[in-house]
């Protein structure tokens, strides 16, 4: 998973392509990024943020996104935050999280 800079976070989350942002905890994202990677399965761009508040811009991004606790997963499409979760326990939960993305579930 590619670790994103603040500029990349701003730009990619506003782009047309949906993007999933994985915000790592104190010890990194642990297994969380693996579960998300498996669920996304290459269909969606995946960005990572390690050491969540390592710079002012990333901290501002997380503040605006309402991230209170980490690790966290943010699901974006065209600049709109579609879901935010901090407890992805398994691949099924990860898949359910990104199912809110347009085009990734039959109901969208």
């Amino acid at each position, binding site marked *: 998973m590619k670790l994103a800079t603040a500029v990349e976070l701003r730009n990619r989350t506003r782009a047309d392509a949906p993007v999933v942002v994985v915000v790592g*905890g*104190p010890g990194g994202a642990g297994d969380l990024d693996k579960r998300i990677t498996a669920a996304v399965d290459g269909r969606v761009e995946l960005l990572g943020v390690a*050491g*969540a*508040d*390592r*710079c*002012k811009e990333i*901290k501002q991004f*997380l*503040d*605006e*996104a*309402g*991230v*209170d*606790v*980490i*690790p*966290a997963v943010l699901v974006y499409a*065209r*600049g*709109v*935050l*579609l*879901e*935010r*979760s*901090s*407890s992805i*326990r398994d691949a099924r*939960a990860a898949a*359910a999280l990104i199912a809110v993305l347009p085009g990734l579930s039959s*109901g*969208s």
Partner: protein
Amino acid sequence: MPAPASPPVFARLLSELGTEPDTRRRALLDEAREELARIDDVVLDVRASVPGWDKLGYVRAFCSAADKAKPLLATTTNPLLRRLVAKALLRLVPPALLPPPWSTVSSGPAAVLHLDDAVFLRADDQFALRADDAPRIHPSWSAFLTHPGLSEGLLQPRRHEHLLAPRSLSPGAEIAGSAVLVRVEASRGQQAGPNGAPTPEGVLCRVVSSNGSSSSRRLTSEGKDAGEAVVKPEVLRAWLENAGPGARALDLRKTDDRALLVAFLHTLRVRRLDALLAKEMDPDRRFDVVDAVVDAAADTVAQACLDPLACRFCLPDEEWAREAARLLVATGLVVEVWPRTATGASTGGPEPVGARANPQLVWLDSVADAGLVGGSLSALGQARAFARLAVSLLAPLGALPMVGARDGNGVVVTIIGEDVDGIAWQRGPWWVEPAHPLQPVTPLLQAWSEGRGRHLPEPRGAFAHDIKALPEWLGHFVRRAFAPHESTAPIVAGAHESDLRAENP
């Protein structure tokens, strides 16, 4: 200090619920609910009678009850059973161990994860919509939206409380939002309107500050006076009609959205608002009713589900808390998360995230299924559920939602109407945040001062409400959703293209 005993009767009932055939389940559900009420009584008695009650004792009771419920959780896929277990466990979480704002609610989140029986039992048929569910809404509640000159009238002085305007109107204004709130004071200049009638070239606005004072002077970001705060009326109208980039209607192919609609209509009936909507009413009283309908929609979402993060265990750095954490982790139902400390947020500098903070323990989503029916829904998911309801049924009553705030926790709602003389008026805007236990509906100015809803979507690139088309949309939606002949074909009302104009250029 006594902690409530783990609920053996409730655990037995739940285990029987997992194995009994459907015919026996309803009676068992009733019995389980009675038992749940008895657990409530015990917990509330203890809370009322014991100051500084034994938090570790409650955690032990929670863990004991969780252990008893685990066999059922492992075998049942029934989301309603799982939410009953979650509701019982929730009684055993001390409010003092919850994060704010729930920690300030003395009763804790005891009232949430609630579905009235009339809604609960509709799960048997997957919340299928029936013809007799259809809301009866008198045309007068929506017809005024087609009146010519409505939008222009709303922009007249003294016809509105506050209108949203771009921050660039007064970059130096002392206000916390990404936009500003204004009141129109006078017109400036004239130009030919689209139908040939003269329209103002610009409008002079009073820009409202955080403390409620207002000024008609434009301030630069350096705080210098830059002349009158004048804006084109088209800009104000674009903000008024801004539905946001995240606006979607209910998708009635999904069980969750059908359940939401059934629950909302039930709330309207319980609050006797359905009878008011069914008849023509004095236009001067319409605002109160629509306001109550907005409250009903927010409450429906807020009562039916709970954000897993809102009921996580936040344990202090004390010896008993370490024992409590060990017990909770041993249940296998919790995952650890770390708080982002507030230090950096106030200083604006980098912060040592979670480096020394205690982990907090999230448990609800391992017990309750995700979604409105399951009961586990993030604050953002709750706001989006409210927004879908608002786009489908509130906007045609004049309660216009703006969806797509940066944090997604809430929706901006502005109510428009006409008085008895046909003169347009506007109330609001409000910030509707269903997951907030204390103030789910609050004036936007107040929300901004509390740090909520500050980053709103701009009209450019977002959907816009086609106000004149909303009455027709309401009829279309109700017909499609509740038509009796739709029993086999899927009911689809999810396409937002029907009621929302194409994106703003």
